[in-house]
């Protein structure tokens, strides 16, 4: 009876088959239309996108996934011509090659009030080996002009039967109608997830399927080498999923977003388990806990993490005589940072070379470097564990998937605090991760396979503190001493820039950034010691820094540090603003009033705050005898500002710019 109930449950939702759109049959209205109904500014639109995924079985090859795709694209104007070329990425990793076939296409145009069509020929289809891991097919359509409707169809055959690519339902042009149908044999159990801000219709049914399987088997026992072809039938049921969405608005990128893909409407299928006849039920990732555990069990992760004998002597020597855990941790972190060089590759697994070879060569990917680090911490008796991370460019995985993480850092428990370490960067420091890793949550995995979520967001604000003295000269120039201190992530960014090339090039860029400052007696303190805030100081001079009008001097107290442009220009915003880490700018500026002048007026102090204590701007200024002191502080306590506060954020910047543009007026005494 249990089975019956199960079936009943699955049959509850029945697909309502919608108006069928057939490849090669377009309506006159579609071709004649000159503008998108809901988004008149659109250069092109996807009128229809259909994807049909099904499984095939061949005795010699086994299972493969077939994905048939149909796009119907409308080109409204010349800027939309890029949509007349489709690029289809094909995986080609280690013998598992995806193949494209059955590419067909038609271009439809209006000619003298009639719809005419032109067929895509072979000379519009190109396949290319991009590199060892990736191929690419490009399809470009003939006779494309403003108004064209394109029908394009192709099929991808993939041996990666355990993996189904994401179904993207939203693009930077509107999508009128999107349909996905999946037919998945009972042996594969997938879990579905959707993301983005739009309604998606989802239904699931079950159908029986039988396939003929022909196979070779050896004849009667004893005869040598003789085989014959046999046929059999495989009976099973399939889970049928139908997904539909319509009228999806274009997804347009905005500045200061971490990754626009996080907001794209899409559906994902993730393999949860397999249930083959005569084989035990096999469970794959279902929860983040499971994902972490299964990654831990991979040889290229846990296996590599547990190796110690390649470094033990070196670490013994390194930490001998050190007593506190902090000292040991810093010694090891410093050692790995200086010894190892990141090759730029991400991923949660070590490469073929593994940690041992990486250690020997001094070069490795992120997993090799940070698993090595974790392993050394553990070897030294510290309470360390690896933390899985998804980088910013990898996006935010909203559901548990083994592809969800692509980066590893080390976490060290020091009393009640978890301190994060990333040794891929020479200038990294405990709890200062590079921007790429400051994304969403990480997952810490313990030796027993258990795991927990970790907040990667820095707790303390990164400081940019400037002290500047200003002397006003008769020729309109200023000069003085400038001292700037950076902490945490700001210091990390500074050090990376400073180390990149020669000091001359660095100073050139610094002078240019401040609009032709002239810098002398430049000095950097703690450039080599990331444990301390980095400080740069110099003497500066700058021409034409203030104005004289009719015997009065007009000057902006921030001079070249003035915020001049509102970074937020568009009226509306759909996605949060993401600064990456909390920060604070603190400027203290002391201006000496030149002899023979007195202060006629100075701007009024103000303080402005963003809602929910997200940030504040404080502007204080006072004149004492012949010194004007200004203290200006801008802070973002929370690096992510939700889109519904965008108006407040713009207004916040408006206040900053207006206040900073106000002038001090000096007049002859």
């Amino acid at each position, binding site marked *: 009876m249990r089975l019956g109930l199960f079936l009943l449950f699955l049959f509850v939702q029945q697909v309502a088959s919608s108006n069928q759109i057939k490849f090669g049959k377009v309506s006159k209205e579609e071709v004649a239309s000159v503008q998108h109904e809901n988004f008149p*500014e659109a*250069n092109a639109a996807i009128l229809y996108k259909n994807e049909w995924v099904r499984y095939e079985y061949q005795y010699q090859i086994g299972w493969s996934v077939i994905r048939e795709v149909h796009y119907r694209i409308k080109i409204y*104007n*010349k*800027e939309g*011509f890029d949509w*007349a*070329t489709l690029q289809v990425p094909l995986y080609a990793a280690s013998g598992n090659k995806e193949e494209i076939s059955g590419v067909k296409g038609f271009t439809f145009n209006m000619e003298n009030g009639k719809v005419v069509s032109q067929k895509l*020929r072979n*000379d*519009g289809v*190109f396949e*290319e*080996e*991009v*590199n*060892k891991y990736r191929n690419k097919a*490009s399809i*470009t359509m*003939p*006779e*494309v*002009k*403003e108004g064209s409707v394109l029908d394009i169809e192709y099929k991808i055959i993939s041996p990666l039967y355990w993996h189904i690519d994401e179904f993207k339902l939203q693009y930077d042009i509107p999508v009128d109608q999107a349909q996905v149908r999946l037919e998945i044999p009972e042996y594969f159990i997938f879990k579905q997830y959707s993301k983005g801000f739009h309604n998606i219709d989802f239904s699931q049914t079950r159908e029986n399927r039988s396939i003929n399987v022909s196979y070779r088997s050896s004849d009667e026992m004893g005869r040598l080498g003789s085989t014959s072809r046999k046929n059999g039938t495989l009976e099973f049921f399939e889970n049928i999923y139908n997904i539909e969405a319509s009228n999806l608005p274009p997804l347009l990128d905005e500045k200061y977003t971490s990754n626009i893909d996080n907001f794209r409407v899409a559906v994902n299928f993730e393999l949860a388990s397999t249930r083959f006849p005569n084989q035990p039920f096999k469970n794959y990732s279902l929860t983040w806990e499971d994902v972490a555990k299964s990654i831990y069990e991979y040889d290229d992760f846990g296996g590599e993490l547990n190796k110690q004998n390649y470094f033990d002597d070196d670490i013994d020597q390194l930490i001998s005589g050190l007593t506190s855990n902090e000292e040991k941790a810093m010694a090891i972190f410093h050692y790995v940072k200086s010894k190892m*060089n*990141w090759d*730029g590759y991400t991923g949660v697994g070590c490469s073929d070379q593994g940690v041992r070879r990486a250690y020997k*060569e*001094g*070069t490795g990917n992120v997993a090799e470097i940070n698993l090595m680090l974790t392993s050394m911490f553990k070897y030294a008796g510290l309470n360390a564990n690896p933390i899985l991370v998804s980088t910013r460019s990898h996006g935010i995985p909203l559901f548990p998937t083994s592809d969800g993480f692509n980066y590893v850092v080390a976490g060290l428990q020091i009393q009640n605090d978890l301190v994060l370490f990333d040794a891929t960067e020479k200038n990294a420091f405990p709890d200062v991760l590079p921007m790429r890793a400051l994304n969403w949550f990480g997952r810490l995995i313990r030796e027993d396979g258990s795991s927990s979520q970790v907040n990667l967001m820095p707790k303390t604000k990164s400081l940019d503190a400037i002290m500047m003295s200003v002397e006003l000269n008769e020729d309109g120039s200023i000069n003085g001493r400038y001292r700037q201190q950076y902490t945490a992530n700001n210091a990390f960014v500074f050090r990376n820039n400073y*180390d*990149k*090339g*020669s000091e*001359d*090039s660095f100073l050139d860029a610094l002078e*240019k950034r401040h609009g*032709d400052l*002239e810098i002398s007696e430049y000095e950097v303190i703690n450039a080599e010691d990331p444990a301390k805030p980095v400080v740069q100081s110099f003497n500066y001079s700058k*021409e*034409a820094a203030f*104005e004289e*009008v*009719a015997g009065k001097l*007009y000057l902006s107290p921030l001079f070249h540090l003035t915020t*001049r*442009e*509102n970074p937020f*220009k*568009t*009226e509306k915003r759909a996605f949060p603003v993401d600064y990456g880490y909390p920060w604070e700018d603190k400027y203290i500026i002391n201006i000496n009033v030149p002899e023979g002048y007195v202060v*006629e*007026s100075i701007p009024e102090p103000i303080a402005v705050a963003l809602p929910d204590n997200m940030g504040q701007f404080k502007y204080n200024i006072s004149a004492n005898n012949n010194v004007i002191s200004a203290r200006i502080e801008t802070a973002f306590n929370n690096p992510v500002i939700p889109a519904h506060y965008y108006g407040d954020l713009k207004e916040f910047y*408006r206040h900053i*710019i*207006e206040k900073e*543009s*106000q*002038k001090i*007026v000096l007049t002859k005494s």
Partner: protein
Amino acid sequence: MRLSFSILLFLWASITFSQEYSFDSIPKKLLDNADAVVRLDKMDVVVTARDQMKINAKRVVTVLNENGDRLVEAYTYYEKKDKVAELEAVVYNSKGQEIKKIKKRDFLDQSAIGGGTLYSDSRVLILNYTPTQYPYTIEFTKEYVTPNTAFAPNWSFLDNYRVSTENSEFSFVVECGIPFRHQEENFGPYNIDVTEITNGIVYKAKHLVALEREPLSPSFQDFTPIVKVALDKFHLEGVDGEATTWKELGSWINNELLSGRDKLDEATIARAKQLVAGLTDPLEKTRKIYNYVQENTRYISVQLGIGGWMPISASDVDRVKYGDCKGLTNYTKALLDAVGVDSYYTVVNAGSQQVNLDPNFPSMQGNHVFLNVPLEGSDIWLECTSQTTPVNHLGTFTDNRNVLKVTPQGGELVRTKKYRDEDNYQFTAAEFKVGIDKKISGKVKIVSKGTQYDNKYWRANNTRSEQEEFYKGYWNYVQNISLGNVDFHNDVDNIEFVEEVEFSAENYLSSAGDKLLLAPNLSNRNLGVPDRSRNRKLPLLIRRGYLDEDEFIIHLPDGYLPETWMLPVKEETKFGSYAISIESKEPGVILYKRRLLIKSGQYPKEDYKLYRDFRKKVARYDNAKIVLTRKES
């Protein structure tokens, strides 16, 4: 005994080698301004047949810091018919000791499709190495054979800015008896040893110091030493060629690459004729045909073998309605032929740097083709890859340079149009109201021509949010702008772009006590001052000049009067002139006039500072404010 002697010699050689690459052995002067030092750049080219060229090269680079990584240049491009026989990289530490060896199979093999190309069969083998220390040295050797002798390698003794060269050696030998030509350029101050040998030539140079990039200076290749070589008889992707003059090279292009590829079917010819029915003026016919091409084709670049040099046939373009520059140019030419207008496929070195095809050294040069239509008395140019460029608009892409016009009688070097300074014109007219609340509101009209048209016309179809982004950036000195109506008019016949923009801005004026400060230049401030250039070594080059004229009518807030009138300003320099004036138009209304002319030209390096001073003045005056005081009544 001979054997052991040679072993000894070999051992000795290898010892000196490792010392040779140590950081300490780099002459100090080569470290100045350098992110990397090319220790040795050596290439031996041997032409064994018209269609066989063997290249042996060794390149040793010591990288001093992260910025120098890109200067290693350990890669080789290859085409289908090329054979890369050897490829190896050896890494040395700063002491010159070998730390790693990378074999050919460990180089990344990648598609080398450039931006804007959909497909090509070019590939690249590239070294993938993560430096473990600075400085480090990479010795890169390659050996390959190519049938494409049409492109004999050119040789640069200096690679780029911020990299010096310790030793550079280049030899070119022709073993098959084909005559070749060579040309040395910018050898001037450099001590480069040239030795003519039997069938060839050898160049050697030592200790070329690194150069710093300088703003507004000539192109690197215009003042650094290079050698050009070319064979009189050559081969290109299955096609033989022969040329010693531009006329001959043009003939070869015409006969081997173009001839017969301009056939169209009868229906298309009939359609072309129908398009121009009733027209007699060849310019009008040209406009019609060009417009048809722009409305019906698009740019798609596919480069396969000889297809990298030969256009796809006009009938193929007619069928698919796309092509690259060669295909679309050849197609347009075929359509013009059909309506009786002569036109010529023209090879150009496109780009804003105005690179000439060298009149003294005919060889395969150029990176683009477009179409020349000689009409009575003047040349008309058509950029067939663009769906929007007007007839005869060259812009900075193809202006003022030598190009190769291919005619059935052979090639002909001709010069494209130079924009005079005044041709690159912008006129801004504005009328604004200023409120007591410090708000301004009004309307701006901007007309752009010449190269200033270039900067604008592609924005014709901008969306509202793109417009907002643009104007808030263009007028970034005006805070809190709100845009009203925005109208664009692209006049392709007169090649003029007109923008009409309504805008207002809160708090445009600043206050100082009870006075108001008003910057009368509210919609065309030229605040860019070229970067300072210490110890300037290169001449100042202003490649293109321009002229801006502005007239702003400003209605002052009620009850306020200018306390000071900005004095009329007039600056005359050899680089251009600047003038502003303010006059009272009627009570409460002022007229602000501005004129800025920048002259193109090359000036001695000493003038750079003067030019900067001039631009600083312009920036200062453009930002200047007048003080408004309350009228005493």
